[in-house]
């Protein structure tokens, strides 16, 4: 029996006790993880954490607002290089991160303008063009990209006597937690409702007082902020960036993560990030096969489980909720 006594209670985050227990366990597991797992696994988890932020951002745009973008690599590059330059000029980590996100968000608004006119496949082509253009600009403009040698970024200074790997892990997981909570809150607020309204029926959204211009651009801004931060965190962990990293395949990988993880689901975004991080590791000896794996998985997911890994989880949960009466 699930009795809600007030509107405020109905809106609370993780309202059910079971959800709170699970959340606590998950956070505890994340905190303990670097002390029990091997170093390379901790590094992998760090990679998943930063990737999740980008995938959540992409999902806010594709899954919630229904605006398909293939230009995420462009935002990644902008975030990464903005971060790199800011760090080289002596900005502290947090400030550089914020700057990278903000600059990517500005670029996002700029790219969002075609979305006011274009829909579906036409918009994807326009954003694809943006991704390729940014890539070419960074490849050819050495002042921005640091030329052939790229940009070198000083590594994070560990604190509290932690090792570098563990410290980075904690910082990244903390950031992921923050960005995930923010995403949950955005999605459940009037902003998220406006996004989903635009996706489900843009004419009805407009007629009910949702400004398409404002909310489509806002979706692009928030999404590219997330992607910019993803780029910056990636740059930080690599320690050295060059434009070749941010090619079209990177956009496609983010897209794949959204589809496989689950469209319009934040938990799904994280699952998707796990998938696209682990697949290249598992197939490390057959690198050229990775896109094939993505392609086949997408086909299977779209045919058998359109809601992605998150849909699978929902069904599993339902099974146990109904057990043994089914």
């Amino acid at each position: 029996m699930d009795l809600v006594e007030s509107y405020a209670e109905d809106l609370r985050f993780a309202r059910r006790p079971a959800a709170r227990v699970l959340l606590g366990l998950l956070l505890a597991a994340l905190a303990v993880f670097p002390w029990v797992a091997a170093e390379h696994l901790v590094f992998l988890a760090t990679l998943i954490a930063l990737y999740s932020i980008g995938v959540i951002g992409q999902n806010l745009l594709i899954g919630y607002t229904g605006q398909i973008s293939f230009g995420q690599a462009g935002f990644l590059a902008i975030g990464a290089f903005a971060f790199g330059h800011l760090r080289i000029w002596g900005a502290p980590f947090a400030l550089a991160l914020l700057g990278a996100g903000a600059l990517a968000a500005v670029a996002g608004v700029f790219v969002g303008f075609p979305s006011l006119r274009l829909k579906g496949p036409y918009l994807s082509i326009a954003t694809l063009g943006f991704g390729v253009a940014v890539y070419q600009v960074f490849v050819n403009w050495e002042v921005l990209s640091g030329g052939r040698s790229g940009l070198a970024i000083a590594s994070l200074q560990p604190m509290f006597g932690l090792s570098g790997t563990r410290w980075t892990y904690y910082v990244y997981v903390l950031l992921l937690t923050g960005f995930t909570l923010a995403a949950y809150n955005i999605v459940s607020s009037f902003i998220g409702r406006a996004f989903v309204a635009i996706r489900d029926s843009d004419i009805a959204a407009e007629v009910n007082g949702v400004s398409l211009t404002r909310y489509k651009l806002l979706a692009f801004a928030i999404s590219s902020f997330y992607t910019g931060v993803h780029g910056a965190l990636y740059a930080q962990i690599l320690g050295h960036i060059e434009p070749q990293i941010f090619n079209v395949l990177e956009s496609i990988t983010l897209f794949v993560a959204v589809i496989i993880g689950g469209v319009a689901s934040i938990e799904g975004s994280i699952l998707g990030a796990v998938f696209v991080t682990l697949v290249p590791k598992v197939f490390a000896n057959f690198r050229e096969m990775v896109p094939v794996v993505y392609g086949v998985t997408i086909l299977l997911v779209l045919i058998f489980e359109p809601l992605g890994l998150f849909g699978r989880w929902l069904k599993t949960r339902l099974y146990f909720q109904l057990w043994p009466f089914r």
Partner: protein
Amino acid sequence: MEALLEVRELSLRFGGITALSQIGLAVAEGETLAVIGPNGSGKTSLFNCITSIYRPTSGAISFRGEPLTRHSPDEVTRLGIARTFQNLRLFHNMSVLDNLMVGRHLHFRKNLLAAVLRLRGEETRHRRRCEEIVEFLNLEPVRKTRAGDCPYGVQKRVELGRALATEPRLLLLDEPVSGLTQEEKEEFAYWIHEIRGRFGITILLVEHDLRVASRLAGRMVALDHGVKIAEGTPAAVQRHPDVIKAYLGE
């Protein structure tokens, strides 16, 4: 009599096709006006022009004395015009309650930071208003159901509720009772009547069911091929020779 909505010499052309030509009508505050006409006579096009989804080729629309032709659809809603659609346009993946909450969108004090930090004072304030509508339209059992999973009759109610949630001065109903059973039609007619009485909302109604239309509306306008052919009391309009010709032929 002060006109709430006034349409003057409105024409709408798509290439060579004339959807509306020189339409003029006025809706007075507090009345219910029905627009009738055979399929393709331009009723929905008229609605789309009023709500700024289409830009009229020529002519003027004014609402409370203010010209409407330069506004975007969301601004028109903000001025106090709400509508429903003939082929339902619900937000299928949202709950019924969230559909109504989208209707409240324009009344929200929008604070980005409060949204990100999950401060939900506004939300509960507007939830209260939505619950009033839920109660009015008997939507309690489906409050948390996904709108797309509701039966057709319920979906029609949700759409009516969503339009009411915007607190309009003028409500445009595009075939509110089409596709409903006889009992549902009766219920809906009652609600439409109540909306005028309880909320004081003026209603412009497109309806094929002439019995329902003439019961609800004080006045009627008939369109055929984008031209206004008759206007007056429901009984007079339905007896008008041009209206009979439009529906039944020579």
